[in-house]
């Protein structure tokens, strides 16, 4: 194709780079590198292409002799400290980051599109696979949105059970964060300790739902199974031991000069920037914005719980570390309260009284005609959800997680959209890393605790 036809091509497939950013270099396709090119030419981009792409949002580039001596570094997608398949393109001046551009989409599996072809209850297993570190939180966010559309009342026992499992999921997610974050910085022992406790939690999840990770336990209308009788004691045992473990991690890290040197004053994000860039969860609270959905817009009975929302005004990686450590302590306290509340509701109803929405248990299904009919109908035709749109919002371990579900009155969702915290948090990465060293990028990526499954969906 001639250069002109490419220039006029309005298709979104064209690779856009600012013409002024680098001097034009001719190549065999007839296009200039600084001009428009089709994407096929850029599957293996040359250095000029990468510079043009990463610096296109810095218009003065090229005029300053110092920044002209920058180098482009490709980090990922296969890189141990990017926590998944995240590709970062860094423009560095010596060891200082001049600009940074995340490249995502490597894990895009079209979950939102798949949801539109499934019945409402078939979507639940898909939600596990979005943010695979905290599946229960995704289940809950989806269930809350559909329950809002159905106007379904959930009994207290299921609500508190959901709270309990969500807080355990938060602890589990924070343990994965702490272990991998510390490993990135070079403290391998913490990783081993964290995964030891995470294993206990995964065993609890397995006992409750039958699955360690992809639990699909929280369903529309309640939860999928009655929890086993001895599980509350097991959880209590874990919770009683857990504060000692937190102290153990802190004993390894808090006074560790390497840990302090790598974290303190690194990756600063101001409160205004956090709000402008859509950062939520622990990174936002570490920047001094006092907002937690659990406390401020309570869902699933969180208004019955007493807990503190840890915040810090420092806005650096160290502050995010402290906030998350404190959050684990608060989660432990919420779990204790949930267990106390559940103990008082022992023989009450677990799930919503909605036989046309919730699958009957096996015993009923095999002995009662009506249950068999309901079971058959739910499995073969799903259930109809009144037309409308609903947004649910939960405080996930990584931040604010919203599910936006649109119904057109049929048994399949018309649209399911997940607002995942990591997606927005990634936008703030450049602000946090600019002007800092390359090594700090690793610390910052660890501190925002991203899950690429949630970003790419």
């Amino acid at each position, binding site marked *: 194709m001639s250069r002109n036809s490419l220039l006029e091509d309005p298709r*979104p497939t*064209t690779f856009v780079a600012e013409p002024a950013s680098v001097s034009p270099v001719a190549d065999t396709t007839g296009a200039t590198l600084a001009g428009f090119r089709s994407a096929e030419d850029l599957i293996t981009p040359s250095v000029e292409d990468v510079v043009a792409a990463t610096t296109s949002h810095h218009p003065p580039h090229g005029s300053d002799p110092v920044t002209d001596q920058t180098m482009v570094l490709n980090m990922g997608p296969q890189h141990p400290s990017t926590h998944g398949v995240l590709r970062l393109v860094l423009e560095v001046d010596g060891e200082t980051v001049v600009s940074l551009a995340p490249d995502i989409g490597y894990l895009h599996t079209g979950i*939102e599109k798949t949801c539109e072809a499934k019945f409402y209850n078939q979507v639940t297993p898909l939600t596990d696979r979005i943010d695979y570190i905290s599946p229960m939180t995704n289940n809950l966010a989806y269930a809350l949105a559909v329950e*809002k559309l159905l106007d379904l009342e959930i009994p207290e026992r299921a609500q508190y059970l959901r709270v309990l499992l969500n807080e355990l999921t938060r602890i589990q997610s924070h343990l994965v964060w702490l272990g991998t974050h510390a490993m990135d910085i070079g403290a391998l022992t913490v990783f081993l300790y964290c995964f030891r406790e995470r294993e206990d939690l995964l065993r609890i999840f397995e006992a409750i739902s039958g699955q360690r990770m992809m639990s699909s336990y929280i369903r529309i209308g309640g939860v999928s199974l009655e929890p086993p009788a001895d599980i509350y004691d097991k959880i209590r045992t874990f919770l009683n031991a857990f504060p000692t473990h937190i102290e153990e991690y802190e004993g390894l890290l808090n006074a560790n000069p390497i840990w302090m040197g790598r974290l303190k004053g690194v990756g600063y994000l101001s409160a205004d920037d956090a709000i*402008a860039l859509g950062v939520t969860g622990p990174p936002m609270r570490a920047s001094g914005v006092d907002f937690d959905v659990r406390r401020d817009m309570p869902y699933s009975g969180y208004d019955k719980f007493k807990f503190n929302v840890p915040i810090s005004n420092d806005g650096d990686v160290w502050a995010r570390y402290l906030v998350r450590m404190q959050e684990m302590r608060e989660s432990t306290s919420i779990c204790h309260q949930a267990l106390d509340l559940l103990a008082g509701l022992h023989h009450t109803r677990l799930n919503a009284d909605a036989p046309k929405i919730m699958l009957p248990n096996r015993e009923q299904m095999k002995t009662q005609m009506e249950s068999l009919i309901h079971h058959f109908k739910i499995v073969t035709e799903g259930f109809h959800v009144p037309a*409308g749109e*609903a947004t649910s919002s939960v405080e996930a371990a990584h931040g604010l997680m919203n599910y936006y579900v649109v119904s057109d009155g049929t048994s399949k969702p018309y649209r399911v959209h997940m607002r995942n915290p990591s997606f927005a948090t*990634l936008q703030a990465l450049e602000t946090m890393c600019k002007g800092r060293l390359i090594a700090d990028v690793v610390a910052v990526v660890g501190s925002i605790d991203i899950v690429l499954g949630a970003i790419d969906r």
Partner: protein
Amino acid sequence: MDPITSPAPPSALFGKQAVCEALADHAAIRGLNDLITDAKWDRKELTLTVAPETIITAAQAAKAAGFNFLEDVTAVDWYPTEPRFQISYSILSIGLKQRIRIISRVSGDDPRIDSITSVWPSANFYEREVFDLFGVHFAGHPRLTRIMMPDNWNGHPLRKDYPVEGYR
């Protein structure tokens, strides 16, 4: 007391007049009154429809009314109805602890709306995602390229006329 509004209006209200009367004290209704073309109070969620030409003004008005945090931008494809694409903006007020949804419908022939990245820089990735998956063009976006799909991908997967299994 109802955290969203007090006293709580009946379960669902449709139409600008009904919503504006029942929720006259709501910060978003006061701030955006002139821009709203339609409104809905359904399932305790406030949805305000604005014309696509006024989206930047509406975003600024919402921000001025205290809705300072842009949570999400997404779209719904109402194919074959026209105007086809519904762009939904979910906006949170951290101070008021409330959420509103601003929606705007754009036509399927030339899906185009102004980018609100000048009001909230966080709209950057969200708008790129809507552009990638729905093919809606955001005028004034600093870098409107595909974000999820490969750059040479054919079509926009979340459109309703795009098959679930993809083109074969």
